[in-house]
């Protein structure tokens, strides 16, 4: 006698450890297999774009910290680039190097968290996550030396950075780089060719390149599917045009490749940090800009960077006032979620948790 099954709809989240914030998936299962998925979000919607219309250009820097709150530096950078383009301000060389350096440290911190939680979702119960946090903690200490904050940094301002690095920052950075090589090698040895990781993630939730491009997927998620698109290479900003680095790509587009690409990017980011330390020269760290900025009426700019999650852009439109007339945030986490349904249908519940981890989304940025 055949056994009949019946589809069942389950809500995963909004409060669930695997959803990386308040994120809900309405999933229809047949047994353990996924038949339908609908991502539901907006629980963390704070109306950042509306708030920006009420604040002046300098104040908005603090709003950008709270988008992707594990990579505030890069958010600051994208916003500042947009405002500088609007004003036509030239940023001093030293500030460009400091921005590149801190943005890359932030990318390392963000990727370490992304990888840590991805492995946590696989069931590694803390160990690799804590390996990642060990190094991330030191990066946050460095940020604290720069600006007194650890998470919501607001270190970059339109025209440059807020403060030059203090003298004891440079020896501390050298010490960090020295330690990091050893620590990261330990992490690599532990997980990169771990058999369980490979069996669980290879060939799972494959994202083909044509779909990735069509669905506007960007960042490591796109590069794991075979494209080498990276705005740091394609349209260099700040000091990236003077940096020698590679863009790691993979062709599988599966969970393992997304994880692998992030691991390789950490190595490249450290390479960039080292080059910044070698090349940086004394000088001014902020252009002469007033506290209250008034760009010309009718001007607009699209400031974009390669953030840790993908293409992050601020589209700022000015009407000549002290606040933007409109500020749109092009959020990579939100747009990368477009492919959720494609990635999950046909896989099992346990794979769903891992796939969500491999996308490395941040709800602060999805909901804004």
């Amino acid at each position, binding site marked *: 006698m055949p056994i009949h099954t019946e589809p069942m709809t389950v809500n995963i989240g909004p409060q669930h450890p695997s959803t990386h914030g308040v994120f809900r998936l309405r999933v229809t299962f047949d047994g353990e297999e996924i038949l339908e998925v609908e991502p539901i*979000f*907006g629980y963390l*919607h704070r*109306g950042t*774009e*509306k708030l920006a219309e009420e604040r002046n250009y300098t104040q908005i820097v603090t709003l950008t910290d709270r988008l992707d709150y594990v990579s505030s530096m890069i958010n600051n950078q994208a916003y500042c680039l947009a405002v500088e383009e609007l004003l036509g301000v030239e940023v001093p060389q030293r500030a460009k190097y400091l921005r590149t350096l801190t943005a890359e440290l932030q990318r390392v911190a963000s990727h370490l968290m992304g990888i840590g939680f991805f492995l946590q979702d696989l069931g590694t119960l803390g160990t690799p996550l804590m390996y990642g946090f060990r190094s991330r903690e030191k990066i946050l200490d460095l940020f604290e030396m720069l600006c007194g904050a650890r998470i919501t940094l607001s270190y970059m301002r339109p025209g440059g950075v807020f403060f030059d690095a203090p003298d004891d920052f440079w020896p501390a950075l050298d010490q960090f780089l020295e330690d990091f090589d050893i620590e990261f090698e330990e992490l690599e040895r532990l997980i990169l060719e771990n058999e369980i990781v490979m069996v669980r993630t290879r060939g799972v939730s494959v994202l083909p390149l044509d*779909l990735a*491009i*069509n*669905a*506007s*997927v960007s960042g490591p998620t796109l590069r794991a599917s075979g*494209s080498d*698109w990276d705005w740091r290479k*394609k*349209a*260099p900003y700040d000091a990236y045009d003077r940096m020698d680095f590679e863009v790691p790509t993979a062709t599988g587009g599966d969970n393992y490749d997304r994880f692998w690409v992030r691991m390789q990017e950490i190595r490249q980011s450290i390479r960039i940090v080292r080059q910044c330390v070698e090349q940086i020269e004394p000088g001014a760290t902020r252009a002469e800009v007033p506290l209250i900025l008034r760009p010309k009426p*009718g*001007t*607009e700019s*699209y400031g*974009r960077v390669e953030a840790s999650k993908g*293409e992050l*852009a601020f*589209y700022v*439109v000015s009407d000549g006032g002290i606040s933007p*007339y*409109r500020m*749109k945030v*092009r959020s990579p986490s*939100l*747009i990368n*979620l*477009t*492919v959720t349904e494609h990635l999950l249908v046909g896989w099992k519940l346990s794979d769903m948790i891992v796939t969500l981890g491999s996308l490395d989304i941040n709800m602060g940025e999805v*909901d*804004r």
Partner: protein
Amino acid sequence: MAVHQLSAEELAEKVSVGVPDSLDTTSINTAENVIWVKSSKVADVASFMKSDVGLDFNFLNSITAIDYINHFEIVYHLTSIDKEHTAIIKTRLDGREELSLPSVYHLWRGADFQEREIWDLMGIGFSGHPNLKRIMLWEGFDGHPLRKDYL
């Protein structure tokens, strides 16, 4: 080679040949290298820009709506991953009630959430979008908060 932005002249010339009578010549360019398109022809122009071999815009970066009280402006930022160039197209919608644009969902899946977001926060509908409902706010929410007259 760095990515470059196509000039408005070059783009306008190709689009006016590819999709006749699609350019909006009455709107004034405030920003550089922007082409204005008639709102009814947005999807046709987008389709042409995606399929034309020389333009080849296969990547939709973002869609933005801006409220100018008397009219709305919708901005599309596009990139060609293979040809390594970018473009900006804009369109305007007059009035404030029952606004609708042709959806580009069938061209770029990446428009899915962004068009839903514009519907949710700005109240501009997209005809042809298969799942146009609120995305950030809940169904039953009154009004569209990013509009200038909301708050």
